[in-house]
């Protein structure tokens, strides 16, 4: 009969109170697990987006906005850059000695909530995503450079819009203007777990063609409404960021030859672009890391702090429940002492009881936390593209178990000392 069993027996004797303290500990631990896993998910989904190319070249302005716009397809489109800059940067050109690939992208409106992106077929042949993975087509094929009205759907966009191969994407220019052009879906990408899943890709040529037309139509509309006024329409259009110049793109995604990137050439190319005064070049991985640290990173510590407070609170619950029971068990402790248990032994029994309660709570909390995450994993996968597995433990969770033992020893200390101090002769006489 080990001391652990002695401790376990006294937990059993106060089954209800023990159960309640275990539950409150489990909830606290589950919260910590949830915060850690969700943080991991957000971290991954955030960082993945910026992998696969080294630089984004886009209009001058906030670098965060450029990244949000071109990587995550979020926020309002930024301004445009001249197509001629693309010609200057692409491989083998003026700035392009170190450039392996440059892919132009044009951000359009949204189609059923998914960003429409005009680009070139090389987007899916030259670029890689995440860990050097190649884009795969789940259905159909890539769009062709010489077919201006072909489209390819990201995995999530395809499943949500229910569009099939051969069906048409209509009215992608948005707004009230007449937009009769149709893009025929020729391919659906396999899921990548990146923002690419959440976009509709069309041939840039077709894209520019309709936006040209749409802009012209809008022009006409506005002219109709502004009957008396002599507004400077050019200024108005710039303010709205419309793509009214055919020879513009939103941004380009640039890959530097790996060996040259390692030799620091990425920054050299970036500087050349920045010096050109028409555009800025940013390193997406760096911007994302900064944004993540700045916003989500701090939030994570706040959430984690709150979750840890819950765990500590549950620990104090254990202390209170054991301490409250001390008056009942003073007699029991005296009996153990009279049977020959040392002060140290009865103290250990109380500490072990505290540790057992905390660890049981911890174990249930881990299961609960991962269970909830697992139950939510289809949702998480749909929203972020990150597939969480039930057993996806975060490194920080390893700290949890020793942490709980330390916490349990700390909260068990007070009642353990009370046990240590029990006056045997006196407590033996008073029957409970």
């Amino acid at each position, binding site marked *: 009969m080990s001391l652990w069993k002695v401790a376990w*027996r006294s937990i059993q004797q106060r089954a209800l109170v023990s159960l309640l303290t275990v539950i409150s500990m489990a909830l606290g631990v589950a919260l910590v697990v949830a915060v850690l896993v969700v943080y991991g998910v957000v971290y991954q989904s955030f960082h993945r987006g910026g992998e696969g190319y080294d630089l984004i070249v886009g209009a001058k302005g906030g670098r965060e906005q450029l990244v949000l716009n071109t990587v995550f397809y979020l926020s309002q489109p930024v301004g445009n850059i001249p197509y001629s800059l693309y010609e200057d940067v692409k491989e083998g050109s003026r700035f392009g000695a170190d450039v392996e690939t440059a892919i132009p992208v044009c951000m359009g409106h949204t189609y059923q909530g998914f960003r429409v992106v005009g680009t070139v077929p090389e987007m899916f042949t030259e670029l890689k995503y995440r860990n050097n993975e190649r884009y795969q087509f789940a259905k159909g094929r890539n769009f062709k450079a010489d077919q201006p009205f072909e489209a390819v759907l990201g995995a999530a966009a395809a499943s949500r819009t229910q569009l099939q191969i051969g069906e048409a994407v209509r009215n992608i220019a948005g707004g009230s203007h007449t937009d009769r052009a149709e893009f025929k879906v020729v391919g659906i990408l396999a899921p990548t777990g990146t923002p690419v899943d959440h976009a509709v890709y069309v041939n840039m040529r077709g894209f520019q063609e309709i936006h040209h037309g749409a802009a012209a139509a809008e022009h006409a509309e506005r002219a109709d409404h502004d009957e008396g006024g002599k507004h400077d329409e050019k200024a108005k259009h710039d303010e709205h960021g419309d793509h009214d110049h055919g020879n513009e793109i939103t941004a380009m995604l640039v890959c530097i030859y790996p060996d040259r990137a390692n030799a620091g050439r990425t920054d050299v190319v970036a500087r050349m672009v920045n010096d050109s005064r028409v555009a800025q070049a940013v390193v997406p991985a760096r911007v994302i890391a900064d944004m993540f640290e700045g916003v989500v990173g701090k939030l994570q510590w706040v959430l984690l702090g709150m979750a840890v407070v819950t765990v500590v609170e549950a620990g104090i619950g254990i202390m209170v429940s054991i301490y409250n029971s001390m008056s009942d068990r003073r007699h029991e402790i005296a009996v153990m002492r009279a049977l020959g248990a040392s002060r140290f032994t009865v103290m250990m029994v109380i500490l072990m009881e505290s540790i057992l309660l905390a660890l049981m709570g911890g174990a249930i909390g881990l299961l609960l936390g991962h269970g909830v995450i697992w139950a939510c994993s289809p949702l998480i996968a749909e929203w972020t593209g990150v597939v969480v597995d039930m057993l996806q433990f975060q490194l920080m969770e390893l700290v949890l178990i020793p942490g709980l033992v330390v916490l349990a020893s700390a909260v068990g200390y007070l009642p353990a000392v009370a046990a240590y101090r029990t006056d045997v002769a006196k407590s033996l006489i008073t029957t409970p």
Partner: protein
Amino acid sequence: MLLLKDVKKSFRQPDGTALPVLDIPEFRVAAGEQMVMVGRSGCGKTTLLHIIAGIGRPDSGKVRLDDWDLTLLPEAERDRFRAERIGYVFQTFNLLAGFTALENVLVAMRFARGRPDKARARNLLNRVGLSHRITHRPAQLSVGEQQRVAVARALANKPQLLLADEPTANVDAGHQQQILDLIRETCREENVALIMVTHSNDVAVQFPRMDHLEDINHVAVGAAIG
């Protein structure tokens, strides 16, 4: 084997004055000897047993068991000494409520830091006639059965000395004799010295030696009441 010399003990009363309870110039018990201790209620019998067991400390004097002076041992060693050499059947059984009959015996073995010997524990419970009750908890046992578990537990570590504080006070006459026989027989078999406190004349007369605490104790606490 057991020798008490000039043992004095007084308690602090609620009004702050000292209440002398024991003043025993000399008290001896030989190895394997069986004796009863009688005396009025409140004359200090339980206090004396506590001092012999090292649960309470005398204010002065010596308590020797073989070559060991209990009053000189540090507390931790006294605890260990008690666990290994002294069995105690309490006036109020004091079984551990959360543990089964068997576990109550095993836990006593554990505290003596010996390897809990399941076979011996079962054997002891067998001998007190509880082989069919070993997984019962104290609350599921009759008072007489609880007392028998307490006897088995007191003998768990093969003590040299068994202290029994009115072990038969709470059971009927039939069980009283049964438990008494059980204790005496087991002590004889294992050569355990026995000091039994009792109020019952029927019990006392069966022992070869009967001490009145009032005779060996120079303080007369109980007398003031009587």
